[in-house]
């Protein structure tokens, strides 16, 4: 579910590794994210984190087959997974002592957006796509997601994303404050460069 790599002293890569589901956050993935953040939080030797997606997409949001109407998971497991999700995206990610870099390509949707909000730097590929598609399924985006997006951007952008369910490209995401930088090459490579600069500073 997660690929954890420590390629350089002080640097940890956290890769979402669920490519067939476009890295959608399912039960196991959300539990793994909580675990790795809990463990990394107290690692003084790790100075910077780079969060990225493996297989062409950053993250397609929450996995509907796990978390929504058609879920076949047990109520107990879902309760645990939901609590873990709120823990890491509402609290844990915001308290990490490390500088957080995110590298975005492909889809970055719905439940993935708070990760960008909690990041210090977000590098996006020029062809990355961002959005809050919940309304297209007859859902309401979670209040935590709406609040998080509202902290990154203005009310106009938030209303557009949440009410229309349309995806926006990287250029617009940059203008609307979701991204720090747009690149036309590998955003992970660029995020690692920046993270290394931070570690060496």
């Amino acid at each position, binding site marked *: 579910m997660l690929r954890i790599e420590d390629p350089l002293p002080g640097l940890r890569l956290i890769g979402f590794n669920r490519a067939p589901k476009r890295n959608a956050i399912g039960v196991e993935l959300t539990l793994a994210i909580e675990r790795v953040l809990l463990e990394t939080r107290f690692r003084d030797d790790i100075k910077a984190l780079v969060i990225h997606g493996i297989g062409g997409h950053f993250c397609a949001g929450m996995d509907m087959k796990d978390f929504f109407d058609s879920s076949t998971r047990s109520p107990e497991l879902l309760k645990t997974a939901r609590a873990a999700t709120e823990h890491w995206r509402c609290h844990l990610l915001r308290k990490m002592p490390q500088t957080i870099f995110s590298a975005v390509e492909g889809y970055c949707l719905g439940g993935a957006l708070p990760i960008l909000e909690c990041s210090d730097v977000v590098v996006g590929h020029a062809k990355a796509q961002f959005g809050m598609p919940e309304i297209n399924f007859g859902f*309401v985006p979670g*209040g935590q997601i709406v609040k998080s997006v509202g902290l990154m951007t203005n009310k106009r952008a938030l209303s557009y994303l949440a009410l229309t369910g349309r995806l926006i490209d990287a250029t617009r995401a940059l203008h609307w404050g979701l991204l720090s930088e747009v690149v036309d090459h590998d955003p992970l490579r660029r995020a690692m460069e920046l993270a290394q600069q931070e570690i060496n500073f």
Partner: protein
Amino acid sequence: MTLSLTDIGIDPDESIQANLDQGVLIVGLGQAGGHGLWTVSMIEYLSRVVQRIAGNESIRVLVLEAVSKDFCSGLDLNDFAAITKTDPIRVRTAMDEFEQCCLRLMPTLEQPVLAQVHGQCQSAGIKWLEGCDIVYADHRAEFFLDESDFHQLSMVNNSQPEPKANLISTNTESFDALAQQVFDGQEAARRGLVTQSFPHDLLTHEIRALASSLIEKDRLALQFTKETIAHVGTMSWDASVNYTAAKFAELTSRQSGASSSRAIAIASFLAGESKPGKGG
């Protein structure tokens, strides 16, 4: 199905054209060729439209646009002065209701509220935009925070001046008003006063396409999404989680057609079948 406005309790007004078609209510302000000065009756009319469409399921989207060459070039001060002489309470009431409508009613109206702006946009026009969910502007629209109109709005309400739009920082607004700055539609999009700007020729097409796409969405989900946007910003993270849980439960229940336990209890009480007030 096309409904007339009188079907929904809105009387026609000579300075406003309104058309309800397929759930999209398009309100066009002013007269062709006119300058887009907003009169007391126009302000009253807009407030009335918003009040009447609340809860009206036949209207899915409200779009405000101008028939005149400007969206709003200010308040018609001759009209305001003349009416103030004979009926000052009417003017105060109209402005008070308009502010209430823009700042409190529109953001929680179940229908998405859209606007398309061309020409000049200032004073009450900017106040209206604050209540809108999505605003498209002509690249070359001219936004102007007019100090005299700003104080007029504040003074008739007998209150301290409020930011013209929460969308703009108070400092920026003060600077623009005092320095008489004018900025175009593209700059308004950069500042977050409007959502997006388009070349003039595409503006109407884009806003119509947007309105059409919104009526395809689930009505209740749109309403709850608007409410979520309006409320969660000031909540703690934990409160937003609780809010979401409550909203999801209500949405699921209402989308499935099931009545809430509250609705069932009230219906049962009114039918004389139970006495919930007595504990059963």
